[in-house]
């Protein structure tokens, strides 16, 4: 079992360091590069949601990200934030059939995340938002 944890302020400037943290974990855990994308996407979508909406009216909101991978290549990412309580899994599903004039990307980020992950769970844990995202990655690097 490989685990890594980091903690950043809810500021858009922290997005690049968070992605570097994910990349470092991915290579340390020897996970296949081809399977990193859903986690990079989920990290950006969830983190930017906290930055843009979750920290409205609050100061010094922190976001903690914990990554782990077990021997069966089950990867788990837990994102905890002290922002306004919000369950993204209850957000309305965007209409992906609407004509171009009526399209927006509101809600599309979390819809992408739910679709690309195997399992996404939300809890309001000790007054914090806690999102747990899981996906089993396919083959290992050596086989590629």
């Amino acid at each position, binding site marked *: 079992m490989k685990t890594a944890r980091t903690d950043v302020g809810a500021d858009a400037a922290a997005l*690049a360091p968070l992605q570097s943290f994910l990349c470092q974990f991915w290579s340390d855990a020897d996970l296949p590069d081809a399977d990193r994308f859903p986690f990079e*996407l989920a990290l950006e979508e969830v983190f*930017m949601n906290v930055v843009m909406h979750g920290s409205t009216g609050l100061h010094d909101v922190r976001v903690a990200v914990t990554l782990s991978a077990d021997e069966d290549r089950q990867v788990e990412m837990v994102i905890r934030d002290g922002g306004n309580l919000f369950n993204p899994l209850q957000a309305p599903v965007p209409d*992906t059939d609407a004509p*171009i004039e009526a399209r927006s*990307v509101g809600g599309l*980020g979390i819809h992408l995340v739910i679709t690309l992950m195997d399992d996404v769970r939300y809890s309001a844990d000790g007054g914090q938002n806690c999102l747990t995202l899981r996906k089993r990655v396919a083959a290992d690097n050596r086989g590629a």
Partner: protein
Amino acid sequence: MNVTHDTAQKTTTLHAIGRLDFEAAGGFQKDLEASVSAAAADGNAVLIDCSALEYVSSAGLRVFLVGARAAKAANVPFAVYALTASVKEVFDVSGFGRIIDVLFDRAGALEKVGRGA
């Protein structure tokens, strides 16, 4: 993210290279809107070459939407081509293939915007 431009056969092509994330989205949107305006004035089509675009998030998708809308409003033929696996997955899940012409390669894209051989 880097973007290079070229114009040939009455077609302006933006080659999108790297990661289109929240950070890159603002700059790419300005670039694409300016390219669509210039193409409208010159009677050109606009293509986006995505063959080196490794990553797109919902913030990046929004730029494709804004660009496609601007092109439609200005009667500028518009298409994207050569999506990488990750970017294609995002387009598929979000249904963007139903509102933006997505072609497999440059030849298909040129044909789609009426610049085929």
